């Protein structure tokens, strides 16, 4: 049996990873997953296939699944307002089906 929850995905620069995870924890989410990556966006290409001298500007994708949508929106809004004026990043929400709802 599955129950519904909301997934927040934040793609941003590694340099503000700590600050974003602090927001996530303050909002009351029980956990998150960080994936390092590369790609292309409005700030140009971030390669993954070559050593980059400045690791802090590499991108990370942070995924958070929370039971109630309110928390999800709180995280998304806080990150967006606080950091995305100067740092590059995107944030989006999705409906997801989860197992073991007590974990969220």
């Amino acid at each position, binding site marked *: 049996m599955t129950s519904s929850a909301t997934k927040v995905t934040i793609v941003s620069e590694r*340099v*503000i990873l700590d600050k974003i995870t602090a927001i996530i924890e303050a909002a009351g989410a029980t956990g998150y997953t960080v994936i390092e990556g590369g790609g292309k966006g409005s700030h140009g290409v971030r*390669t993954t296939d070559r050593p*980059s*001298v400045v*690791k*802090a*500007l590499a991108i990370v994708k942070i995924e958070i699944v929370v039971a109630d949508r309110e928390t999800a929106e709180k995280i998304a809004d806080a990150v967006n307002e606080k*950091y995305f004026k*100067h740092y590059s990043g995107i944030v989006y929400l999705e409906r997801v089906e989860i197992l073991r709802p007590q974990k969220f």
Partner: protein
Amino acid sequence: MEPLLDFLSTFAVQFQKPTLAFLLGGMLIAALGSKLDVPDAIYRFIIFMLLMKVGIGAGMEIREANFFDLLAPALISVIVGVVIVLTGSATLARLPGVRREDGIATSGLFGAVSASTLAAAMVLLEEEEIGFEAWVPALYPFMDIPALVIAIVLANLYLQRTRAKAPAGQSAANGERVRVWPIVVDSLRGSALSALLLGLALGLLTQPDRVFETFYEPLFRGLLSVLMLIMGMEAWTRLMELRRVAHWYAVYALVAPPTHGLIAFGLGYVAHLTTGFSPGGVILLAVIAASSSDISGPPTLRAGIPSANPSAFIGSSTAVGTPIAIAVCIPLFLALGQLVFGL
């Protein structure tokens, strides 16, 4: 006429040295679109190895050094770091088409120090058999940290002033004061400085002589050549990025390294006359001043001045500043040193 010819020939010889050749080779293969890649982990390991070697070497030397010999060069390093940022923000940051905070961030990066340039200079001095006090590389943080701190403070003061002029309501959320201590801690925690300081402590407090002689010392040159290759490839990639920002950055990145080096050379020369600072030390100090940070400086600045455009400051430093420091400034100050000190 003859000293000038001597100067030019010493200068030309340096271009055949492996360090520079690997740098140019890296730029060349990147320009040709080569698929060659060196894994990220190896790059990081090389930085660790080089700074560990530099740190341990310096630490072992400090054990025997007279502590007061260190004072004048350390003070010079701090002064040079601060002066670089102040002149940069009075010149580059005021040019048309350059946003003030971008200009200040760029000068902060040029005041900070590049580990790869420092290592390259050490190898060339050893090849030329020019001696220097082994603690000279430990001057790195004395120039690096003040430069980054001053740049971040200056940029934030400027941003606060412009916000104060902005209509009320916009400025309400942005009243945070700049705290200096977190910037210092952040710099010290950077990968390059942590390795250097750990090495210093190990060299100073323990007896790492055997592991130093059998592992760190023999690997130093080989790893440096790989690092130079990577820096060359990175420089080419960043050059594309630099094209998108104002051309003044490229001009600054060409002119600033030799100018900064000359300031340090002059002050170092005074220290040579007054406290007996070695000629090799003066040359190395000039190269440290000429170098611009490419590893640990950018993240600190990105965090400290979020509104500054990283393409501008990283592009200037990595694409133009570092190649100029390695390919032009090292041979230049080596030749100048040989001319001035008659080595």
